[in-house]
């Protein structure tokens, strides 16, 4: 009953005209960046982070959340019609989605992807509503040791799932921690790694780092070669899947939804892992696995449901524990912090309007996305024809303005350009930026919790293994660290390795 009252309260907040407008802007921009290859939700959210300052916390965060789950919808359009994933979570959709489009079945592919996404998105919201308040109650009992170990686990999971060698990903995570520690020490107020520059006393901002590593570096990488587009030009008719399509897709949608939601909750996991895992699961369960790769609708329905369910699930660790499970959620954490809010176990009780408002807005956003994605498909196809030689300079200008407006400080523009150049060379040398960014956000929190637990336990390191939750997290992290050394597990890791930045 309480939940229903809270949901009603949430709808009261989400249905305010200004919040509806921000929700629409969010899902529209999300679909847009999902459709356009070359810019993903991370770049778009970092670009719009300063905009959240202009409104209430609810409006800003509703818009940011809309960009995230909107991009999950939009990404499938590009994958199916152009065979280029609009964002990383839609990589798998290219395999069967584009084949279906080539066979003249682009409509059902787009349709099942939108309906699957809608069903999964709605399920994950219901689960979020039911799980989050209970988990928040448990999380109140978490001490610094549990928080530290959970963050270590999150980082290790992300490095485990990052493309390329694990030592490289771990090195990136360490660099992220170091960058996060720049500025005044929160306990002793001693300046660290500031090199006498006043601009560094408050540390490096998240916005310039993310915009540099994901926005500018992405543009630099994309300028290297002309992006080839194999757009399906045939007229798209009959978006509604037929009875046979629904029968074939019902199981994959249900399994993808459940799997995606569970993987979304895990720290370090997220939409990309979920879509890959769902595809692998469907192929394994299929009686005719040879159809996969040649236009099997199950290969579209499962992954598309999984990535949307994961996008919803990823809100749970952020809202209940205050720990962002992936880079996108780290940006959302940035939006909370900008407004002086701290997500965590007390958020739901102290700011019920905010929490339930965001949840309710996601219901509304999912309906908006269904409307945006089906009837407006022609418009998105036209958009795919936008020339990149005009788009890329505009992205660079917007990133410069976005960074400057977030702090009114030219120094941040320099930081962004520097990180853009560093990010480009990092990617060329096979160093992925995702672990760096997550560690950059988690670094100060990890340090704080580590030092607090050591002070509280009077230097007893056993405190991390004597507490069951902390011990379980560390044991899992250790297993993941050892796993790549075993040949069989190394092969599995390479199969699910992902490129978060795409």
């Amino acid at each position, binding site marked *: 009953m309480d939940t229903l009252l809270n949901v009603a309260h949430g709808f009261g907040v989400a249905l305010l005209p200004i919040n509806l407008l921000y929700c629409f802007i969010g899902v529209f921009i999300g679909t847009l960046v999902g459709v356009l290859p070359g810019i993903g939700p991370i770049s778009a959210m970092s670009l719009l982070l300063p905009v959240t300052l202009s409104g209430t916390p609810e409006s800003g965060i509703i818009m940011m959340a809309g960009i995230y789950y909107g991009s999950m919808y939009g990404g499938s359009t590009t994958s199916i019609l152009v065979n280029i994933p609009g964002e990383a979570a839609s990589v798998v959709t290219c395999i069967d989605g584009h084949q279906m489009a080539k066979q003249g079945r682009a409509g059902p592919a787009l349709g099942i992807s939108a309906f699957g996404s809608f069903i999964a998105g709605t399920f994950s919201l219901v689960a979020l509503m039911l799980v989050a308040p209970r988990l928040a109650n448990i999380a109140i009992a978490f001490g610094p040791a549990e928080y530290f170990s959970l963050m270590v686990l999150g980082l290790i999971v992300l490095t485990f799932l990052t493309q390329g060698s694990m030592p490289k990903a771990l090195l990136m995570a*360490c660099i992220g921690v170091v960058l996060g520690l720049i500025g005044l020490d929160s306990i002793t107020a*001693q300046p660290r790694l500031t090199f006498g520059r006043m601009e560094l006393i408050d540390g490096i901002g998240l916005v310039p780092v993310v915009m540099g590593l994901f926005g500018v570096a992405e543009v630099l990488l994309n300028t290297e*070669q002309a992006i080839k587009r194999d757009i399906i030009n045939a007229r798209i008719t009959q978006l509604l899947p037929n009875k046979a399509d629904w029968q074939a897709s019902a199981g994959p949608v249900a399994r993808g939804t459940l799997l995606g939601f569970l993987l979304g909750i895990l720290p370090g996991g997220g939409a990309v892992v979920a879509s890959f895992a769902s595809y692998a699961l469907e192929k394994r369960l299929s009686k005719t696995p040879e159809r996969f790769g040649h236009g099997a609708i199950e290969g579209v329905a499962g992954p598309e449901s999984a990535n949307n369910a994961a996008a919803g699930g990823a809100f749970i660790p952020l809202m209940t524990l205050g720990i962002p499970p992936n880079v996108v959620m780290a940006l959302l954490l940035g939006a909370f912090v900008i407004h002086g809010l701290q997500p965590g176990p007390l958020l739901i009780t102290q700011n019920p309007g905010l929490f339930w408002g965001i949840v309710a807005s996601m219901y509304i956003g999912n309906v908006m996305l269904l409307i945006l994605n089906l009837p407006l498909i022609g418009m998105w196809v036209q958009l795919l024809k936008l020339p990149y030689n005009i788009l890329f300079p505009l992205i660079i*200008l917007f990133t410069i303005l976005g960074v400057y407006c977030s702090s009114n400080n030219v120094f941040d523009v320099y930081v962004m*350009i520097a990180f853009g150049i560093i990010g480009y060379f990092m990617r060329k*040398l096979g160093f992925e930026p995702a672990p760096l960014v997550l560690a950059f956000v988690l670094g100060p929190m990890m340090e704080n919790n580590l030092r607090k637990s050591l002070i509280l336990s009077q230097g007893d390191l056993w405190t991390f293994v004597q507490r069951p939750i902390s011990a379980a997290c560390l044991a899992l992290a250790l297993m993941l660290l050892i796993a790549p050394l075993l040949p069989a597990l190394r092969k599995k890791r390479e199969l699910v390795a992902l490129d978060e930045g795409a």
Partner: protein
Amino acid sequence: MNDQTSVKLRLNNSELWGGLIGLALGGFVIWQGVKLKLGTINDPGSGYVLFYTGILMCVFAVSIVISAIAEGGPTLASRWDNVSWSKPLLVIVCLTAFSFALEPLGFLLSSIPLMLLLLRLIDPVRWTLAVPIAALVPLGMWWVLKRLLLIQLPSGLFGIG
């Protein structure tokens, strides 16, 4: 020494250089940690986490170096095989020049040439389209930010913007 061995031990190995840069950074972080004071395990100082993170960085960097020596790796040049390296380089030069020009020239005088250069360099847009976009987009953004959102953009020594 056969061909394969010489390939493995070559210095022009991007993995090796990546590891060495990581090692140098790790060493620097350790040094900074020590400089900031480690404190004790009962009461960790400001350099405590930096110091141990630096050690971890060195461990991971050494592991990258060892694997680069043992298994070899792509050359630096091969990372840019089949792609046009000149375009990102030109964009980097433009962005670096822009970062030097932004404060003295202000937003408008630095961003209009930047846009024009990017539009002409990445994949040349015809002049008749490039010039209006390069001029109107920064002007439009400047107007929206300054007049509507009341955000002061850098106006430079000439006070333009």
